């Protein structure tokens, strides 16, 4: 009987510790690792003989949605025939975009048909941050200053059943792998991240669009934290071993 009580006490104590510990750890959900298509495919926007402008490619993502990748040359506009405005590689683990010397190119990643984990960001806990992992990023030339740019504009838009969350950010140049982090709390608007309908990320668009932008992105991830228990619950759990000990003492 004493042995059973001691075992029960041990289990309760361990459970309390595990619960307490899990409150502090985050969970990362890889939304898209660009593993599709596999093997990856080369692309070049050079109308009309090779590929038209804009060029859109659709592929499934690891979490079940569909990724629509659009490579759009904004300048020169209209894009004259016979010019390799942008070359790149999609899939096999990366999206590599290499703009030519005189081109201003935007890349649009649009995720639709979301379901399960990709549609409910609360499935694994409270969503805190969105991560864009780049192997490298060269913003190119800042046309406003006619000199090398230090950042590339990135626009985020998340459409949910309750509304749209959006924001514009600047990612800094990096020659080595880097994670750019965006807090969901920094997005403007009202939305329900447990019911995400679609997401759109635009790289190098808008009024701050750069010339000659080159980058390699290899994953998009969001981070969640488990739903925290109230402090009173934690205290109560922490007291469980003491209660067990007290009961044991009384019974003996």
């Amino acid at each position: 009987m004493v042995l059973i009580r001691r075992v029960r006490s041990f289990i309760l104590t361990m459970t309390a510790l595990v619960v307490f510990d899990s409150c502090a750890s985050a969970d990362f959900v890889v939304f898209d690792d660009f593993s599709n298509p596999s093997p990856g495919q080369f692309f070049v926007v050079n109308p009309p003989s090779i590929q038209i402008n804009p060029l859109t490619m659709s592929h499934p993502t690891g979490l079940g949605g569909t990724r629509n990748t659009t490579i759009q040359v904004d300048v020169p506009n209209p894009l004259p025939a016979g010019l390799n405005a942008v070359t790149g590689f999609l899939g096999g683990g990366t999206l590599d975009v290499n703009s030519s010397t005189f081109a201003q190119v935007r890349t649009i990643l649009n995720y639709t048909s979301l379901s399960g984990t990709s549609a409910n960001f609360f499935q694994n806990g409270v969503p805190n941050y969105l991560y864009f992992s780049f192997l490298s990023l060269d913003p190119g030339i800042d046309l406003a200053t006619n000199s090398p740019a230090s950042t590339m504009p990135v626009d985020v838009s998340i459409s949910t059943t309750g509304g749209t969350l959006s924001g514009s950010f600047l990612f800094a140049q990096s020659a080595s792998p880097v994670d750019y982090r965006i807090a969901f709390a920094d997005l403007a608007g009202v939305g329900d991240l447990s019911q995400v309908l679609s997401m759109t990320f635009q790289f190098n668009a808008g009024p701050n669009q750069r010339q000659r932008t080159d980058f390699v992105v290899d994953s998009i991830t969001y981070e969640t934290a488990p739903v925290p228990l109230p402090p009173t619950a934690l205290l109560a759990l922490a007291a469980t071993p003491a209660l067990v000990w007290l009961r044991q003492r009384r019974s003996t």
Partner: protein
Amino acid sequence: MNLLRSLFIAAAVIGTSSAAKADILIDDFSAPNPGISYLISNSNPNGSVFVTNNVQPGINRTVTLTVTSTVVANSMGGDIGVTPLGSLFSMSLNNSSSGNAVINYSFSSPMNFIPNVASGGAIGALQYLSTADAGFGSNVPLDFTITTTTGTLSYSTTMNLTATFTPTNVNLASFTGTGDLTQVTGMSITITGGQAADVALDAINITTPPGTPTEPVPAPPAALLALLALPALGLRNRWKKNQPAMA
């Protein structure tokens, strides 16, 4: 007769003044037309060579493009010659690739890069347009070599980090080495691009400044003077014709 002589003198004066040699256009990338769009990838050869003869009369161009890092699907691309955006040479490296372009010019017969120096003109300059994005580097090195019958002259600089073509003049006197600029047999330009560099080059020529204002007979004033002398010569002719009658 005297009128004809006057006209001859005037023509001779004008001819003397126009002896100042014009600038030497090496390459404006107007050839080939249409231009070449190149791509060095893991399915295209690395160390691509493009030859265009007579880019200007008597000048042949060889462009050699080399990726010096591991070649990937879109390591290096660009254009040579007439493109929808104009006549130019361009090179664009992707984020993981480094490489270089060597643009070599050979002349069918030696050229004189300083044709007006003998008549008092100054040594000219190598003039070009460039634009570049250094990518992950701080600059894009640009090296010039002028080959002459007696040796080579060289000059190293960096490309202009601008969005549009920006002109640069390099005085030929700034080149180092040993060479005879009156006997130039060729020239080469080496562009060294680091990861993610994007560059373009255009309008390469040699300026040949005319003689200084202290020259004995500056062209336009001399021609004007010659023309102004015509009435006087006519008067003299008429006077000579009248002389026998008076005698």
